[in-house]
């Protein structure tokens, strides 16, 4: 195991936030997006088929290989496409009422297209004016959106002159400027440098904690792992899995890796094998962390809670280790592709 302490630390914090967010997601949120038996075909070509799920507030990662139907699904939710069958509602609304529906939605596509000749400020301002904001309100909200993505300094430059990362951020500002309740982001971290990624992820968390439902598609599984409270996996137009990472891992039988941060790590390690579901235990090189491989996360947590209480251990953090989504992906999608 060659995990550096600094990485483990960040994983530790992320894991804590994710567990909290996932609990909040499951416990508090009512479904804001309901996809019910939705199918979309392009002539004879399958886009998505009989997909059903519902999402509440929080960050949902939409995962799948290229051509899996992620963009189709996002376009359907965003109202840019109509399903051939099934129903799709966002906060109980459908795109048949565009003047209400699109007030609740912000969509950042992965494509690098903008109205020609506009500056960053005009781009956001025009969006808000189309929403019906008065000029003064629009100017204020534009400034706010530009500040959120840190583009105030270049706001009056034409977008054509922006770098890839700046274009990505101005699209993000455009998607969130009207403070939508549902935000759909297609590969939102593409082109961003590591610093900007961290900042944008913090912004997503901020928006999600404010009650927004955020759907993020990404083919970079590590990013999804880092950001999402909830996962929707699609492959070849079908829904493969829907739930939080640990739940999916348990259901699929895929062993799950859990990271525990504690000063009692060395003491904990041998006792972990008394829990039925534990397959493997690794000690972090700083001796203050454990990586547990379990075939049933729920059973493990139950057994671990009992041990913590009886042994009076102090646990600083606990959560899925960063390879969970990748493992599930490998099990559900990549494995299937190899098989087919």
């Amino acid at each position, binding site marked *: 195991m060659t995990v550096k302490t600094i990485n483990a630390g960040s994983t530790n914090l992320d894991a804590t936030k994710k567990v909290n967010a996932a609990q909040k997601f499951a416990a508090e949120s009512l479904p804001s997006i309901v996809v019910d038996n939705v199918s979309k075909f*392009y002539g004879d070509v399958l886009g998505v088929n009989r997909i059903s799920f519902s999402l509440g507030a929080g960050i949902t990662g939409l995962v799948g290989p*290229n*051509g899996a139907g992620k*963009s*189709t699904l996002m*376009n359907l939710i*965003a*109202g*840019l*496409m*109509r399903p051939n069958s099934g129903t799709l509602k966002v906060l109980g609304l459908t795109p048949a009422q*565009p*003047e*209400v*529906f*699109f*007030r609740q*939605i912000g*969509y950042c*596509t*992965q*494509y690098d*297209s*903008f*109205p*020609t*000749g506009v500056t960053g400020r005009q781009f956001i301002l*025009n*969006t808000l*004016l*189309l*929403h*019906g*904001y*008065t000029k003064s*309100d629009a100017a*204020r*909200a534009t400034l*706010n*959106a530009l*500040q*959120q*993505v*840190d583009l105030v300094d270049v706001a009056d430059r034409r977008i054509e002159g922006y770098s890839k990362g700046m274009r990505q951020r101005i699209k993000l500002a*455009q998607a969130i400027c009207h*403070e939508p309740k549902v935000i759909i982001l*297609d590969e939102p971290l593409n082109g961003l440098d590591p610093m*900007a990624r961290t*900042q944008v992820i*913090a*912004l997503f968390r*901020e*928006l999600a904690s*404010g009650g927004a439902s955020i759907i993020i598609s990404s083919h970079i599984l590590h990013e999804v792992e880092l950001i999402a409270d909830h996962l929707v996996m699609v492959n070849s137009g079908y829904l493969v899995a829907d739930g939080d990472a640990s739940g999916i891992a348990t259901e699929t039988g895929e062993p799950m890796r859990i990271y525990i941060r504690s000063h009692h790590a060395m003491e904990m390690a041998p006792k972990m094998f008394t829990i039925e579901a534990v397959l493997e235990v690794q000690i972090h090189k700083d001796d203050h962390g454990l990586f547990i491989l379990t075939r049933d996360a729920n059973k493990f947590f139950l057994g671990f809670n009992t041990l913590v209480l009886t042994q009076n251990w102090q646990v600083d953090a606990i959560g899925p280790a960063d390879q969970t989504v990748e493992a599930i992906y490998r099990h559900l999608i990549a494995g299937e592709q190899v098989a087919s």
Partner: protein
Amino acid sequence: MNISNISADSNASTNSNASNEPSVKAGNNNAALLLRQLGAIVRIEINNTLFSKRSLIAYILTLIPIILLLSLAFSNGDFTSTDFSIDKTRRIFGFIYSGFILGAVVFLGSAAIFTALFRGEILGCSMHYYLLSPVRRELIVLGKFLAGLFSAWALFGLTTLICYLLLYIPFGMTQLISDMTGSIAPAQMFTYLGITMLGCIGYGSLFMATGLIFRNPLFPVAIIAGWEFIHFVLPPALKFFSVIHYLKGLLPIPLNNSPLAIVVTPPSVLVSILSIMVLALCSITITVLYLKRLEIRYTEN
């Protein structure tokens, strides 16, 4: 970007939401909101139409008749001949206007401006920004059409006006002032401007629909151009399906027909105006219906 700033800004945004939301909500379902949205669409589209690369063709078309008439006016023609009079010049202008300004500049210029209203956005992959806005589809079509009409009329109306005034170069300022203070010249000038506007309305609405419906609007535009070009030899029943037939009926100076022309009584002013308005209404309705069914795909395919 500073994360703590984000948080502060988010709070600010939440607070500002309190001021933003009511103004939007207050305007919801009322004329003020619709007018604000319509105004925004018109403003955005006028910028796109008049101040972008795609307006180059329209500007060139606007300048051609002006340059042509200027070169004629300053050519070495014998303007002192007894055959050369202001009445005859006005008649010549009538031919230039109906054949060149109306038949070529207004037609092709409207094609360039109005087909790009939707096709330009679709080709530039920026159509979804409109479709994701909380604006009724009818309003998007109306806003784009009004912006196209304003731009087209501003350009081609200006051409009409300048060309009409250029008529007077050989006759001098005295003749110009005398005619302008009289009744004939202003009446003719406003009639030509009115016909130009009707041309922009008729052709514009048709080309706006064409630009949305057809992936390559060049072919339908060529077919419409061919139809308009041969309108004078069409049987009377078919002439009624030609825009130029109604526009020519409005010309202030009746022009001689071509020897090949099948002559029919020109429609009355009211019939001409109403026919073009009906055409525009039908085209706009078709555009709205099509836009409501339009789906945007941003897939690799």
